[in-house]
C-alpha cells in the first residue's frame, strides 16, 4: 500500500512538474531535478519495502562523541 502511494505520487509529479521542466530546456535545472528525484525515489522505495537504511545521525554522533564525553 505504501509503495503504491509513493509510486502514484511520483507519477503525478512526473506528469505535472517534471515534463513541463523538460520542455523549458533548462539543462542545469534538469540535471539537479533528475538526480534528486531518482535518489529520493530509490530511498523512499527501499523504506516502503521495509529495508533498514543507515542513519546520518549515527555518523554525526560518532564525530561528536569525543566533544560530548
Amino acid at each position, binding site marked *: 500500500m*505504501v509503495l503504491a*502511494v*509513493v509510486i502514484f*505520487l*511520483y507519477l503525478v*509529479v512526473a506528469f505535472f*512538474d517534471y515534463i513541463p*521542466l523538460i520542455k523549458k530546456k*533548462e539543462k*542545469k*535545472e534538469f*540535471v*539537479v*531535478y*533528475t*538526480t*534528486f*528525484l531518482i*535518489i*529520493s*525515489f530509490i*530511498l*523512499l522505495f527501499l*523504506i*516502503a519495502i521495509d529495508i*533498514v*537504511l*543507515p*542513519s*546520518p*545521525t549515527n555518523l*554525526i*554522533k560518532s564525530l*561528536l562523541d569525543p*566533544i*560530548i564525553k
Partner: protein
Amino acid sequence: MLTETVSGKKMIILLSTFMLGSTIILGGSTVLGQDSWVSVITGALWVFPIVIIYARIVQLYPNKNIYEICLDLFGNFFGKVIIFLFSWYALHLGALVLRNFSEFIQISSKAETPQIIVLLSMMVVIFYLVKSGIKTMGRWSLLVFWVICLVVIISFIFSHTGADNFDNLLPFLNHTPGEFLIDSFYLFSFPYAEVVLFLTFFNSLQRGESPYKVFLYALFITMIILLVVAIRNITLLGPEMLKISFFPSYVATRLINVGKFLTKIEGIVMINFILLGITKTAVCLLATCKGITHLFDLKDYKAIAIPISFFMVALAMIVYPNVIEMLEFAERGYYCVYASLFQVIIPLLIWIVAEIKNKKIIELKTTIHKVH
C-alpha cells in the same frame, strides 16, 4: 533572480512561528522540571548577541542573502563549501522537524498509519507553500500565528479553571547555576538560534525595515509564548510528569476539562502543532532550495522544490530509528554542539570577514574622496 518582498510585520510573525515550530510540542527543555520556564528566558538572553550579529550581517548586505554573501566574501570554492554546509543544515533540520511531527502524530493519534504516509501528505502542502513564494509564506504565517495565540491563550485560561496548580512551580530556583547554564544552552540552539536559516532569504525584507527590530521583536514574542506554554505545562503536569512526557504540551492539554461539557481540547492543540510544523519545514525547505540553487548556479529555487522535498522526507524516515533516539539526540547535547557550527561559528566567521571588508571599502572611499 527575482526578489519577492515581505513586510517587517510579516517577517516578525514568520520568524516567531518558525521558532515556536517543534518546540511547542516538545515543550522546550523539561530537564529542570519546575524551573524549566527560567531557561526560556535565559536561553533568549544567551541568543541576544548572536541575533544582533545576524542583524548586522543583514545590515551590511541588505540586498544579498547569506549564500551570495559567502560567494562575495570567500570566493567561489570556499564560498560554495560554506553554502554546501549551510544547505545540509537546512535539509537536516527540516528532516528532524518532520520526524518530530510524524512521531508525534503516530504516538498521539494515528498509531496504525505508516509515518511515511503522514510525512508525504504534510510535504504536499509544504512544497506548495515553497513554490508559492516567500510572500505567500508571510501571509500564511500571519494566519497561523493568530490561531496559535488563540489556542495558547484559551488552553492557558482553561488550565486554571479547576484546581489551583501553581504550587507545582515550587520550589523556586531549586537547581545549580551550572544546570541553568546547560539547560539554557539547549534552548539557545533549539529553537532560538535556528533563526540563522532566515539569513538565506532576509534580503526579501522590505526596504527601510530594520533587521534589528525584526529579529528582536520576533525573539521577544517567541519568548513570551514559550513562557506561557512552559508555565501551563508545569502547572498542569508537575515537575516529575513533565520530565517523563515525550510531548508535554499534548499531555498537559489532555488534562484540561471545563466542567463536564468541554473536554478533549487537545484536538485544537494538535491542529496548532501541524500548522507550526508545516511552517517550520517550509522555511527549512526554502533555505535548502536556495542553497542548492546557488551551489549549482541555477536560475530559480522553485523549480527544484519538489524533488528536494521528497529527499527531505526520505531523510526524515532514516534520520532516527525510533522516538527514544530522537529525544536522546536532542537532550544529550549532540544537537547543541552540532548546530553551533551553523548557528554560531559560520555566522561569526562571515560577520568578522564582512566587517573587515566593509572597513577597507570605507577607507578606500575616504582616500579617493581626499585625492579628489
